[in-house]
């Protein structure tokens, strides 16, 4: 049963005027960088011929994050390769269903995470995503979740929502959580 002692409750640093100012500047720089990196958007055709919202680098990033974000939830055995691929595909489908403005924001997020200098600087991940260790991905997720920069916290929020929805919307996840799935409408 999950028990997080209260002493672990993170104390947010006092937001002095100075740190707020710093956050504002950092946030602005990050946004400008992201917009500069994202030049244009157009829906892509995936191998299956369906509309794909994510470019290959975004898919690589999600594939690297999934085993850490879903640790303890997604099977950690050989069958997990398929499950992980399904989560990436689920995220792709979800992003494709978002309005253009939201897709653009996510594209900026993934551009920041794939561009090596910002990957190192903002995510603290020093190797390319496929080579990133679990530890470095875990440290990245924790640092964004606990960041005092709202831009990074909301970036964490987007990854959290997309990946968890893709996994728990997949019937493969249901037996482990005791969810029987939708009832049948057939009687008798």
């Amino acid at each position, binding site marked *: *049963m*999950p*028990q*997080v*002692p*209260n002493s*672990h*409750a*993170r*104390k*947010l640093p006092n937001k002095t005027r100075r740190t707020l100012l710093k956050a504002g500047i950092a946030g602005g720089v990050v946004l400008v960088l992201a917009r500069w990196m994202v030049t244009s958007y157009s829906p892509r055709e995936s191998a299956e011929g369906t*509309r794909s919202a994510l470019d290959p680098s975004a898919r690589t990033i999600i594939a690297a994050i999934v085993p*850490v*974000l*879903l*640790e*303890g*939830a997604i099977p950690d055995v050989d069958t997990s390769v398929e499950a992980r691929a399904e989560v990436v595909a*689920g995220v792709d*489908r*979800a992003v*494709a*269903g*978002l*309005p*253009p*403005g*939201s897709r653009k924001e996510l594209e900026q997020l993934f551009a920041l995470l794939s561009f090596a200098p910002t990957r190192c600087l903002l995510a603290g991940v020093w190797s390319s995503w496929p080579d990133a260790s679990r530890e470095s991905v*875990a440290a990245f*997720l924790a640092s964004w*979740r*606990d960041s005092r920069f*709202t831009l990074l*916290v*909301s970036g964490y*929020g*987007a990854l*959290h*929502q997309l990946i*968890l*929805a893709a*996994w*728990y*919307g*997949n019937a493969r*996840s*249901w037996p*482990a*959580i*005791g*969810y*029987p799935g*939708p*009832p049948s*409408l*057939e*009687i*008798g």
Partner: protein
Amino acid sequence: MAAASSRAAGSLDPFRIGLASGWKVIDASTLSQDLTLDADVVIVGTGAGGGTAAEILSDAGLLVVLIEEGPLATSSDFHMREAEAYSQLYQESSARKTKDKAINILQGRCVGGGTTVNWTSSFRTPAATLEHWAREFDLRGFGVADLEPWFARMEQRLGISPWLVAANENNSALRRGANVLGISSGEIQRNVKGCWNLGYCGMGCPTNAKQSMLVTTIPAALARGATLVTRARAWTIEHGNARATSVHCIGLDPGGTDPTARKITVHAPTFILSAGAIGSPALLIRSKAPDPHGTVGKRSFLHPTVVSAALMPDRVDGFAGAPQAIYSDHFLERPPDGPLGYKLEAPPLHPILVATTLPGHGVAHANWMRELAHMHVLIALMRDGFHARSPGGSVGLESDGSPVLDYRLDEFFWEGARRAFASMAEIQFAAGAKTVMSLHSTAASYSSWPAAKAGIAALALEPLQASVVSAHVMGGCPLGPDPKRAVIDPSGRHHHLENLYVFDGSLFPTSVGANPQLSIYGITAKLATELAVRLTPRRLG
């Protein structure tokens, strides 16, 4: 319930039968050329306001055109799968957010709007709310006695009545814990007929038991010759000389996300905006409708909602059974213009909804998810908009013209949220919980009420740290006699455009303090009936 009749109800899709009989429904994503329509009344939006108005005005003999941004999905399309339903039936795949991303907004976007996906809770507008509107906004004609016949009429129309089936455990535990503590609770009335008690109201009712606009007023209007255009986004209202002249819409692609080159124009002498409390103000702003006092899109309310999860020794199975059956207004029984009060309810507990709302990730998150069947969850809906320090948010436009709601969660809100976390934890422990977690980024959980009380008192509450959600968007085009403070007059008519009306959740001067569907139905029934009389004096007078 009789198995034979239930099976028949499940296999029938009255909307598809109606389509086959010749109802005029146009999917704008399939148009090969632009479309121009003429109507007596054009209604933008098909939710609680638009649907109710469509039936009343069609019944009065008026030719109605309904514009809907979302798709037409009917009972045959409702498979009780979150992954499918959220992307198909909700705004922004159910991930719509406020500007700073601190509040996730669940808002329907489909034929029937929120009524197709809501959890069926039906409350008349609370007396304290109506009294506040009369006192603070000088609103006459909206007292308890004035609205009584309209609520009664819509309750009759939509089968709103006490729910006689035993509440599921997620709801029963709320009542049990409240009883232990001497906190009042009540049973929620629901707009259902022959409900199977499945628990999937939020994904579209597969058995047509929920009396949403999709199965009641919209079919009635279509049967009287109304035209429904789906996947068409009303973009601007053309106006001049204090009158609206036409509404210009853009077609959406089959995925429902991106505009196509198709234009749909509707000319009419009368316009009704029922696009919801984000959509209606945004349409007025895009249209540059007269707004001399800067009131449009201001005072937008959300009932910002905080969440408390608990683990119970016995199974809860919160994914099954009527999602909302029990409520407590104990913490609303205080002057509405004091510190924030809140309504307590229980939500349905399906995997995506729970997983995306629980904080954190990895093993700790997975451990909570593994307990889904034992999980008990309470929500506290904050009654915003009654106090000077609760001014609500404001609707504005992104650079591409899409709407965005800016809603600041400030100290006044967090003070109420902290009390709400404590109230929920105390009730959950009283109901037998072994562990309670206030949904917050620290994911701190408590094993006793004293521990929870101390922990909640120390929680760092600020935007993006606590999980805050909303399923009730209200305000932005408030109703009132004073054009300096209100967008529409007490007849529902725009203060500066004499043939444009707003009938939806955006007309509330504050939040409702209760799930808003019946407030929208009742007030729209009153305003639309008065409008029908004015538009058809010979026929009705």
